[in-house]
């Protein structure tokens, strides 16, 4: 609502009113609260929630959806077949119940009765089948999430059977994210499908009050099947393309809850009266990709890769690159996941002398050179700091300016090692498919390893043995130094007084239903 002083100021602007006729009018790191902010949720719905976003939605087409920072947009208008809690426990969504067959290759979903899309179309099993098949054939960057699916069929009006080529421990979680979003069939071939979503979700997009690429307004879906999860009458998501604009919006109290462009904005946000909520999200470090020595022979030697790990001053890099907002680690698996081991947090303590000794043992007494990419979207200070730290152990980084096709080149194996940050997925199986499996995008040389594959086969079957294998995989990857993690960096969301949030493990944004107004 406009403030009185602002209305008063409007009265004195006769000069600017002349322009009216030309407008058509279309359109210390310990400070963050870990896990979320506290507060007693108010009864019923609060009038409005204003969200600040640092990423715009790329498409409203559910079959093409990505996730990460875009998840908030999708959670507003769509439901997924399953849900995951803030601690990644799988819960019912549009599927009320689900169960696997004995050999874990068939998942049967019981679709919720009486649910309708906001255009009035009823939800049934065939609609779910069509949505899943569209995702498998769509343009989502994550369509590989359903790679293990060989068939989707409607057994009856409210039962869907998903058949797998092999057990997929991540399937339930995947169905709680973009792979499980269900859109109305009326949007399948609609020319405006990318801008006009129709789901069964808690809110409807008010296209007339929204400006694509800037502001999106949503109103509560009055026929929502889970009204207890609708905490607001309306939601506005304002996308801020510029970090200064977001900071100014925070200083002016224009948003109730927001992601940040950078952790360095935390002190400014707190000075503006916001509470910082944090949770570890990504790990950042070096991906020592060329473990076969295809481009850099030295990296084929495990002693060299271990030397690189010993050469990293993790505390120093955390302070220098993230202002201390994170925690040093030498493992890539999620803290709350099945593969995590506390003793692997410091498997390679900073020791330049040990690094030099390992290099000498490997036949490189004068050190090694590694060529890495440098990009314009990372501040120049970051690669320079990494270079300086490694040089103390005779590991010399030669930077090469990356071109416009940086990601394509990176994933194509253009560089034998590179600094990067990857999401810490909830399940070990997901991390395996993200960066370790022979077909994983971030195993950029697609190296296969017999030990890893044997462990993966056990993880795939789950249970106690699967969990034990996950830990063994973590130990093996750390021991073989496939990566050289620096630290686990936090994801931060700031909340204004009167709003509370429960942060979600391993995800940049929380569940929308975990944002509440407080008394």
């Amino acid at each position, binding site marked *: 609502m406009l403030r009185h002083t602002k209305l008063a100021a409007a009265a004195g*602007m006769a*000069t600017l009113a002349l*322009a009216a006729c030309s*407008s058509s*009018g*279309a*359109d210390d790191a310990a400070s963050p609260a870990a896990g979320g902010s506290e507060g007693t949720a108010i009864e019923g719905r609060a009038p409005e929630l204003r969200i600040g976003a640092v990423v715009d939605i790329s498409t409203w087409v559910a079959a093409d959806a990505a996730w990460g920072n875009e998840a908030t947009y999708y959670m507003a208008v769509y439901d997924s077949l399953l849900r995951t809690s803030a601690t990644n426990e799988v819960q019912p969504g549009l599927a009320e119940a689900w169960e696997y067959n004995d050999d874990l290759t068939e998942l049967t979903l019981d679709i919720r009765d009486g649910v309708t899309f906001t255009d009035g179309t009823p939800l049934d099993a065939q609609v779910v089948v069509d949505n899943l098949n569209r995702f498998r054939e769509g343009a989502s960057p994550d*369509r590989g999430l359903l790679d293990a699916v060989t068939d989707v069929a409607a057994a009856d009006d409210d039962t869907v059977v998903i058949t797998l080529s092999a057990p997929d421990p991540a399937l339930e979680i995947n169905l709680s994210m973009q792979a499980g979003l269900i859109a109305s069939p009326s949007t399948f071939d609609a020319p405006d499908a990318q801008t006009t979503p129709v789901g069964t979700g808690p809110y409807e997009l008010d296209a007339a009050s929204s400006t*694509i690429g800037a502001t999106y307004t949503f109103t509560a879906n009055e026929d929502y099947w889970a009204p207890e999860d609708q905490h607001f009458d309306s939601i506005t998501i304002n996308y801020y393309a510029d970090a200064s604009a977001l900071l100014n919006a925070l200083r*002016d109290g224009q948003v109730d809850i927001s992601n940040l462009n950078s952790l360095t904005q935390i002190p400014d946000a707190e000075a503006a009266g916001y509470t910082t909520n944090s949770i570890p999200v990504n790990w950042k470090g070096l991906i020592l990709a060329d473990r076969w020595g295809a481009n850099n022979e030295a990296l084929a030697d495990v002693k060299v890769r271990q030397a690189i790990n010993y050469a990293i001053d993790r505390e120093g890099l955390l302070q220098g690159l993230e202002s201390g907002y994170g925690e040093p680690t030498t493992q890539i698996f999620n803290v709350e996941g099945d593969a995590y081991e506390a003793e692997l947090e410091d498997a390679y303590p900073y020791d330049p002398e040990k690094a030099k000794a390992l290099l000498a043992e490997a036949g490189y007494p004068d050190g090694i050179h590694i060529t890495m990419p440098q990009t314009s979207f990372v501040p120049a200070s970051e690669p320079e700091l990494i270079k300086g730290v490694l040089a103390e152990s005779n590991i010399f980084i030669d930077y090469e300016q990356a071109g416009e096709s940086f990601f394509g080149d990176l994933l194509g194996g253009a560089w034998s090692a590179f600094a990067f940050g990857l999401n810490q997925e909830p399940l070990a199986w997901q991390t395996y498919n993200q960066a370790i499996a022979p077909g994983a995008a971030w195993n950029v040389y697609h190296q296969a390893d017999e030990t890893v594959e044997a462990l993966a086969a056990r993880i795939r079957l789950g249970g106690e043995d699967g969990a034990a294998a996950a830990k063994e995989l973590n130990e093996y990857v750390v021991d073989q130094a496939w990566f050289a993690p620096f630290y686990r960096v936090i994801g931060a969301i700031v909340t204004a007084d009167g709003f509370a949030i429960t942060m979600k493990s391993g995800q940049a944004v929380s569940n929308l239903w975990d944002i509440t107004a407080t008394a």
Partner: protein
Amino acid sequence: MLSFVSRRLATGVGLIATLAVLTFFFLQFGVSDVAQRIAGQQAGPDAVAVVEERIGVDRPVQVQFADWAGSALTGDLGRSWFSGQEVTEAVMSRMAVTVSLAVGSVVLTALLGITLGALAATRRGWSDRGVQFLAVLGQAIPGFLMAMALVLVFAINLDWFPATGYTRPSESVPGWLLSITLPVVALTIGSIGGVAQQVRGSMIDAFERDYVRTLRSRGLPRRSVVLQHVLRNAAGPALTVLGLQFVILLGGAVIVETLFSIPGLGPLALTSTSQGDIPVVMGIVIVTGVVVVLVNTLVDVVQAWVNPKVRLS
């Protein structure tokens, strides 16, 4: 007059057609991996192939252009490859926002620039030096710095205006005025000086002309000589500068629009160009081209109306 306007508009059509051809083919050099960008950098070849077929970049460039031109001639500029929004809707809605900023800025610049320029030319001395100093100062301060200072003072500390965002006039006219005030001021401060200098110089020239001396010797009041004769003769260069400012602001307000999170044409042009979103870039080029041709024609017509000595030729 009618013949002049017709000739200018016909030339404008040719200009826009040339612009369209050049832009379309130049853009081809920067969009080699546009399908990959749309699908996401981690998307596999299957997903990328789906996108390529969907947006039609799997066809020869000349076929793509022929398709685009055929649709454009019927008024259909297609849809954004990235957002899926109709280009006409995307460009026109944002053009309306930017035009409101540009018109506000040009009107404010005209009022302040002509007043200050006339003040400097008629009073000279300290007034003249003061105006010239302020003109240089206004031009020297970078636009983004001015925008930041305005936000800190008038939005965050005084709480008079919103720090970011845009309110449509259809939602609230006072809200709309509040939302565009700081951006308009930020866009205006740097350009007042140019207009003031032009008006000052032209008026000083006019003061030294024989006809002004004659008017004065016949006993006409100084106020009448300045307003009816000197200022009218000096208006030509100022109108040219204001016309140019308007055209520049259509594409050049990007920094201010981004800092104030205003959904104008600037951020759309920046994003679509860096993404390689050809339909949107083409839409912006065409619509902006039309506006530029119209504004330049209008400026010439107004010049002739203000000063009949100017012949439209």
